[in-house]
């Protein structure tokens, strides 16, 4: 295959980007180790949420608080942002020009911001129904898990904006390219965690 060997998770730039491709192996693997430790944190937050499910303490439960439509919209938006990031990765790998790369990144981050906006609107609806984190064990579990994902998305958006500025000011140097590879892993990883959230929290809560 023209691409040479596969060195790390995520899209591999291939021998065409020889220097960045060589550099990527160690830094991307290191970031992958971090993501797996992050997965442990999310996994334990899921476990905590599930053990707290019966603990509504007479307060509102999943069926009073969650709406399927909103969860579905957020799922679609995050999935779309994962694919648009894929387009950005391809623009980087196949050198479709900085404009294409920046454009796809901008669309990705915009979708991330819309996702966050919808999530915050859901939280404020929950607050208006008296569903605060301190209301019950169930709500503590919920607000430990779902906003943790939201915080990750927030930091992802900030990271993405910084990278876009670096693409403009520094150009597509080797460090910028490998940062984009790591950011890609982070973004796709967040969508994987979201599969768990919509399945366990929203679909599981409304089933």
């Amino acid at each position, binding site marked *: 295959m023209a691409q040479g060997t596969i060195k790390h998770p995520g899209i591999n730039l291939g021998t065409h980007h020889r220097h960045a491709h060589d550099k990527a192996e160690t830094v991307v693997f290191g970031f992958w180790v971090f993501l797996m430790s992050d997965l442990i944190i999310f*996994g334990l937050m899921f476990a905590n949420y599930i053990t707290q499910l019966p603990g509504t303490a007479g307060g509102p439960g999943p069926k009073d608080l969650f709406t399927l439509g909103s969860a579905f919209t957020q799922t679609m938006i995050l*999935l779309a942002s994962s694919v648009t990031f894929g387009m950005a990765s391809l623009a980087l790998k*196949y050198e479709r020009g900085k404009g294409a790369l920046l454009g796809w990144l901008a669309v990705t981050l915009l979708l991330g911001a819309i996702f966050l906006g919808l999530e915050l609107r859901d939280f404020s609806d929950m607050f208006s129904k008296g569903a605060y984190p301190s209301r019950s064990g169930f709500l503590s579990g919920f607000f430990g898990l779902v906003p943790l994902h939201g915080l990750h998305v927030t930091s992802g958006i900030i990271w993405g904006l910084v990278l876009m500025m670096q693409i403009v000011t520094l150009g597509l140097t080797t460090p910028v390219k490998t940062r984009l590879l790591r950011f890609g892993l982070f973004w796709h990883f967040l969508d994987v965690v979201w599969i768990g959230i919509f399945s366990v929290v929203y679909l599981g809560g409304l*089933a």
Partner: protein
Amino acid sequence: MSDRETEYRRELRSYLTGLALALILTLIPFGVVAWAGWSTGAALWLIAAFALAQIVVHFRFFLHIDLSQQKREDLQLILFTVLLLAIMAAGTIWIMANLYTRMM
């Protein structure tokens, strides 16, 4: 260059395949919960199965990790993480559920 163009189209198709599969695997469980009126138990099994399938799809098409690649450490790291999670998360749920039933 045309070689690279073919490669580009192949990878683009791979992302779009991932999108199509992810859409199917999302729409069916949402549809079942919204309209099918299954029993909670049956719906939960379906949701779990489709979630696992979608996670595999994301790993394969978006994170580019599968069984055929040369670099096996990444997959082994995932499997090790899953093992740790199985012990810690499943263990937590098991113990707490057991405690909950005994307290009732």
